């Protein structure tokens, strides 16, 4: 590792991964597929999509679409159409931007295809329940709500019974909707692909363990769309295998995300999509690498097929995800990431749009054993972003490390 003279410090550039270009192609293909799909459902990011793929239902992810709008810096533009209809600026900005796209009839990718039904799972928030109720009235289609109890302290057997029962109801719902049979054999194959995909995505994230790290967590954010939208198909397996190889090559050739890596940080919450570049450059210039995050790691929970029947195991996995557990359990998971990635501090994004992710962060901060800083922003709506305030906070924080 060569030492850089002070005056060249600011010249460090973001090192783009080839994988990101490949991801864009894959996602373009995914979106195009939606135009021809015969069976379409809109689905929340934490829902068990495996059931949809097993029934050849094309899953549309409004949240991913929201992130895409945010990254295109068009959040305020599309949100304003929803606000004109009376949707408050205090509501989730993914919901506002997506609804705005429906009202104005377009989006950065030309709008989303009309659903046959809506599949909402409240393991990530109760916002999606309300958001999907609005969609249900707009499109006049039914909602299937997979209701997941919150695990504040312990995951009770009664919770698993409850969710498992609903999953069987969902199978019936799918069979009735399409007048077709749910094939167990196909479902098992989808589940196998899902598990493999999650594993290979997890291996990519683990590359951040390397010191110095070959990737920034923003690389993981940018490239998470396949594991969210295409989980249960072949695409993520191939894609993340290639991405991992690229990162291994970097390590082999001594190329790291940040030259002269001095500090290693953990990011908490959904990214600030419209400022990813700004954040990346800010940290790179200060020889600081965000090596991991709590968000992408939420997609690495594995379904264990050995112990129980697959549906019960799936129920358990989808109940226990990061956002659906109490603060003590969240801190346990954060501490595990801190140890695993050997980080020096935590950057906590207090995200106006995401109450379940953000409320409790002040308590989490007190429970952590390493330094942390809270910055106030929003994932998609740039109107609340205060650059100077955030810059000052982060500068002051890095000085304490």
């Amino acid at each position: 590792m060569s030492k850089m003279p002070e005056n060249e410090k600011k010249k460090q550039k973001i090192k783009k991964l080839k994988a990101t270009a490949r991801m864009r192609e894959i996602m373009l293909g995914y979106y195009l597929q939606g135009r021809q799909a015969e069976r379409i459902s809109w689905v929340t990011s934490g829902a068990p999509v495996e059931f949809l793929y097993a029934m050849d239902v094309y899953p549309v992810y409004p949240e991913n679409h929201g992130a895409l709008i945010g990254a295109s810096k068009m959040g305020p533009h599309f949100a304003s159409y929803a606000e004109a209809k009376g949707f408050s600026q205090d509501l989730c900005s993914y919901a506002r931007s997506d609804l705005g796209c429906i009202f104005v009839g377009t989006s950065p990718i030309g709008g989303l295809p009309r659903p046959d039904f809506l599949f909402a799972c409240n393991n990530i928030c109760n916002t999606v329940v309300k958001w999907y109720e609005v969609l249900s009235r707009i499109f006049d289609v039914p909602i299937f709500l997979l209701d997941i109890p919150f695990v504040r302290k312990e995951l009770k057997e009664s919770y698993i019974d409850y969710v498992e029962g609903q999953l069987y109801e969902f199978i019936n719902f799918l069979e009735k909707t399409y007048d077709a049979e749910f094939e167990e054999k196909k479902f098992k194959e989808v589940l196998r692909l899902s598990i493999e995909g999650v594993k290979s995505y997890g291996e990519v994230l683990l590359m951040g363990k390397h010191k110095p790290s070959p990737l920034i967590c923003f690389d993981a954010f940018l490239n998470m769309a396949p594991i969210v939208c295409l989980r249960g198909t072949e695409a993520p397996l191939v894609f993340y295998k290639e991405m991992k190889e690229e990162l291994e090559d970097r390590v082999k050739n001594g190329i790291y995300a940040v030259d002269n890596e001095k500090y290693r940080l953990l990011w908490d919450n959904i990214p600030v999509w419209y400022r990813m570049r700004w954040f990346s450059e800010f940290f790179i210039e200060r020889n600081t690498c965000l090596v991991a995050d709590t968000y992408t790691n939420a997609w690495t929970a594995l379904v264990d097929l050995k112990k129980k029947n697959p549906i019960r195991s799936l129920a358990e996995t989808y109940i226990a995800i990061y956002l659906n557990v109490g603060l003590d359990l969240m801190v346990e998971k954060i501490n595990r990431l801190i140890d695993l990635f050997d980080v020096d501090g935590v950057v906590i994004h207090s995200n106006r749009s995401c109450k379940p992710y953000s409320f409790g962060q002040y308590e989490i901060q007190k429970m952590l054993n390493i330094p942390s800083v809270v910055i106030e922003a929003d994932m998609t709506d740039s109107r609340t972003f205060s650059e100077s305030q955030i810059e000052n906070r982060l500068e002051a924080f890095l000085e304490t490390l």
Partner: protein
Amino acid sequence: MKKVGYLCTFTPKEMIWAAGFLPVRILADNQPVSLANSHIQSYSCSQARGSLERLLKGDLDLYGVVFTRSCDTLMRLADIWEKNSDMRVYNLEFPTKINNSTKNFFKKELLDFKSTLEEWTGREIGPKGLIDSIRLYNRLEELLARIFRISPDYELITRAETESPKKIVEEAEKRLKEIEKRRGNKKTVLVTGSVCPFPEVMQFISDAGFHIVDDLCTGTRFFTYEGIENDKAFNETNIDSAIEFLATKYFVKAPCPTKNYEKDRRYKYVIEKAKDVDAVIFLLLKFCEPHFFDYPQLREKLEAMGKRTLLLELEFPVSEGQLRTRIEAFYETVSEG
């Protein structure tokens, strides 16, 4: 009598009373928030922030607090509360999805809740105690419903939420005899929304000249259960019939936007309530997602029905002057037809 606090009207008070505690609803006061600011973000609603402030100020003398996962804010508030107090904190997982297939899960949750209360007191909750408690609350709710049909009494409801149900039953019986059924030619307004624990705010609406039809969380949604079963036919030797009754009762509770109902029951409920009124006021707490998601489509439908609507977005402490002016101006436009 020791007190057990709760924030959401989906909390089965009957069980708490049967365990020998006084169930007390925790409501924000009309004071500025300062201590709570280092525990929860400013984009949480005034009810959450204000209640937490009261805890931190040492304003609440409670043995325990019961949370239900009604909204994302309450879901997280349970832990924040526990980290900052010595009170016992319990979360009852009331389903979000309300239909026949989810009721069994709720019954299990009721039994778990019962066991927890029994642990707290070291005493068993017997069928007789629970049935008596159910009958007491049913009586209270029936009286409040009759009073509200004549004229909403927000001072009484606030006390019903925080004082002994026995005492309020006696008072409500007396009150019912006193009040006259007189509405005259007043314009009627449906006031729909979240938490507003300040009778003085509701008084502004009456003072402006309106007769109020209520759909508030601190109003009719506290005591309205649609098509409640007969509570006379209990099996007094077995707890099951009482649990079954409670599960059914809370599933037919006046619909709330935090729940997902079959056939869009909440939306239709508001439209039905608005049928015969002259106007509708949305009295919503700023940052309350469940209500604000429903608002635009409800407003659209109501306006198509020819109703004038007004949105009042509340934060505590309430800025009274401004609120009064807006309500008075709204009354003017409504009475001009």
